[in-house]
């Protein structure tokens, strides 16, 4: 069979961009297909330099419009009048939820996917994470360990440009970092006070995909400390498909990009037991199109890639493509997260900072490391947040009117520290994706999400709340509030799993190279492949796994296997 392309990559977000880059740089002719609109770097960041007073709703956005068309996205605090164009229209892109499921699925359907809107936090996983399923028996054992992934982490961190401080922690391995951003005065004090009492607890600056040193060869400047990244950054100072992987892939001359094209099915040939290409719907015209390739990479975002596999059922594979095991769609996860503490910090009222640092702090996991010391949970949690000085919006909670009130709000407010917990989500068979009964406006069956956090996640958040309060108090803070109930599923925006990796084709969908056990030329390298969730932000790991899978695919092609 004569193929039109060497490889098709479905999706142009964080992982699709990496697949396109790696495969084209290896000399393959690649088609990247994206369901959303084209957004051109620098040219199309419409709101980037706008001031609030230049927008009709001053940056808050038209709540009436949001209620009608962005019923889910509006619940995301990163969604506002500046960024609304970078999030999906829920009305046009509906999904269903099971009877007892409250799941907020935060999505960006556009060239660049969520690489444009992400929080840029980049953390390596460790063997506490890759060994977790084996250790406590939840889920299936990861067929890889940290040592195998370490060189791929090096590779992606170097290209992405991750700033961070080396801390020598086994549970959060150091990486190939650009110079760290600085802690502010309260964070520095809290770091020291926590370390004095708990040597194993480390507060460090968030490791973030914002450049502290320019990458001139790639046309990327260092960060300007605006912290408006999700509007799009013309400086190219944070990692996105547009700023990084797409230019690299384009430079090879081997990349074709199609946008406004919703992939509906992956074609499978039972005779060769290979996938042969994909079919899509042009969202602007409704026309159906297809292309063929020797190799297919699914990078549509965890749930969308699973959706595609489910929707690509055929006579030969009636339960979904590559679903001989029957586990496709199951064991989905999302970190249980909540606001664990807000504390006020007196004693620093004569200090402030200038500039908007686009990252916070992290306190890495300290539970269930060498000993299982969690009460009712066997995995980890970690905090992210930071210290800040409140601004004029504190006036919304204050009594007062008139000149004195106005003068008050002209001043910088008191210091407070905020810690948000991300607790590991256990892989459970009952948390799963299926095809729903209704279809989307283009006639494609909707995805249906069934999800609930379990007792372990609740126990972890209860401990996190308690420990946050203890640490803040010990560090000299006054606790104002804290919560231990998780937000709805999806709140952490770390949804993953559904096509898990494993040793055994009977109990997992993908092999140790992110390739379908049953289909030798089909790779799924986004969050769908995850067998456990750790408690770190996952995208860096997706990137490392994607780069590794690309190298494997290229090797297989050269060896004539694909």
């Amino acid at each position, binding site marked *: 069979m004569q193929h039109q392309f060497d490889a098709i990559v479905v999706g142009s977000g964080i992982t699709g961009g990496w697949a396109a880059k790696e495969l084209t740089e290896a000399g393959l002719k690649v088609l990247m297909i994206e369901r959303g609109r084209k957004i051109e770097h620098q040219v199309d960041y419409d709101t980037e*330099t706008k*001031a*609030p*007073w*230049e*927008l*009709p*709703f*001053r*940056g*808050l956005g*038209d*709540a*009436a*419009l949001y*209620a009608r068309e962005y019923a889910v996205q509006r619940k995301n605090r990163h969604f506002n009048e500046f960024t609304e164009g970078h999030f999906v229209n829920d009305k046009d892109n509906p999904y269903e939820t099971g009877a007892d499921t409250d799941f907020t699925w935060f999505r960006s359907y556009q060239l660049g996917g969520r690489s444009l809107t992400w929080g840029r936090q980049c953390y390596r996983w460790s063997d506490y994470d890759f060994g977790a399923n084996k250790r406590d028996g939840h889920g299936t054992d990861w067929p890889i360990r940290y040592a195998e992934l370490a060189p791929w982490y090096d590779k992606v961190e170097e290209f992405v440009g991750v700033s961070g401080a080396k801390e020598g922690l086994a549970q959060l391995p150091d990486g190939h970092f650009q110079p760290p*951003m*600085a802690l*502010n*005065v309260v964070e*520095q004090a809290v770091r020291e006070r926590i370390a004095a009492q708990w040597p194993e607890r480390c507060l460090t600056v968030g490791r973030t995909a914002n450049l502290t040193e320019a990458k001139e060869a790639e046309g990327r400047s260092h960060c*300007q*400390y*605006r*912290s*408006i990244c999700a509007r799009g950054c013309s400086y190219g100072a944070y990692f996105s498909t547009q700023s990084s992987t797409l230019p690299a892939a384009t430079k090879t001359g081997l990349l074709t990009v199609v946008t406004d094209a919703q992939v509906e099915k992956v074609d499978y040939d039972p005779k060769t037991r290979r996938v042969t290409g994909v079919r899509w719907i042009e969202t602007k015209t409704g026309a159906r199109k297809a292309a063929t390739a020797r190799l297919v990479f699914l990078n549509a975002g965890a749930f969308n890639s699973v959706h595609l596999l489910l929707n690509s059922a055929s006579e030969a594979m009636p339960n979904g493509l590559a679903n001989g095991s029957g586990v496709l769609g199951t064991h989905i996860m999302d970190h249980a997260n909540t606001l664990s503490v*807000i504390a006020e910090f007196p004693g620093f*009222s*004569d*200090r*402030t*900072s*200038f*500039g*908007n*640092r686009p990252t916070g702090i992290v306190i890495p996991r300290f539970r269930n490391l060498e000993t299982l010391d969690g009460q009712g949970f066997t995995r980890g949690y970690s905090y992210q947040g*930071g210290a*800040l*000085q*409140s*601004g*004029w*919006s*504190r*006036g*919304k*909670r*204050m*009594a*007062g*009117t*008139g*000149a004195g*009130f*106005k003068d008050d*709000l*002209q*001043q*910088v*407010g008191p210091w407070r520290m905020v810690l948000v917990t991300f607790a590991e989500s256990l892989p459970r068979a009952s948390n799963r994706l299926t095809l729903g009964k209704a279809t989307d406006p283009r006639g494609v069956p909707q995805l249906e999400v069934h999800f609930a956090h379990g007792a372990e996640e609740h126990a972890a958040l209860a401990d996190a709340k308690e420990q946050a309060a203890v640490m803040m108090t010990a560090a000299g803070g006054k606790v104002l509030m804290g919560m231990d109930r998780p937000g709805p599923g999806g709140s952490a925006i770390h949804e993953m799993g559904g096509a898990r990796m494993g040793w055994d084709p009977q109990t997992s969908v993908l092999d140790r190279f992110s390739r379908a056990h049953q289909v030798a030329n089909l790779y799924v390298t986004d969050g769908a492949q995850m067998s456990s969730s750790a408690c770190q932000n996952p995208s860096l790991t997706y990137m490392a796994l994607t780069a590794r899978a690309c190298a494997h695919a290229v090797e297989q092609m050269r060896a004539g296997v694909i």
Partner: protein
Amino acid sequence: MAVDRREFLSGAALLALALGIPVAAVRLSDMADADLPTARQRVLAREVSQLVIPRTGTPGAGEVGVGDFLILALAHGLDGSREPASASSPAGEPMPLRPDGSLDHLLWLERTLDRAGGGDFLGAAPQARAAMLAKLDATAFPPGPPPADPSPWALVKGLILTGYYTSQTGAAQELRYELVPGRFDNDIPLTPGYRAWSSDWTAVEFG
């Protein structure tokens, strides 16, 4: 009597021109007729905004069009202002609801202040108006933890503050605005008179 839509919009545009702010900032676009305020309510919204944030070294909220922003924001449901509301106050007084079941904050404000003003809030002397509003505010924000059932005034006041501190005057004259700081100074002295940055997005968000 409701303001004629065209008159309302052109009034907003004139105000904008007079203050040198872009028309887009105060355009009352896409407002259903039922949401248009009466002429009196429009004056009231402006006056109340000005009382919350009066002219000091910089113009006050009423002067920079926050009254109209408030009307637009309430019509479009900003800060949850069009969520279903209860038909009576905790004290058992009837509350004016819109047809969609949300509280008509503007009508509530008008009635509440008129009642305080013995029937005509706007007719009272300026000092008296300020005192009446201060009293309403003090009841809505009692000392101690915030009331479980907040007064509608809390939401209205919040939108007035948003309107003011996101206006060019409030954001860049009263406070300071810098889109491109270019650097991060992690620890600098905070001296008396240091004006806050409206462009410190984290501060605004977590206030």
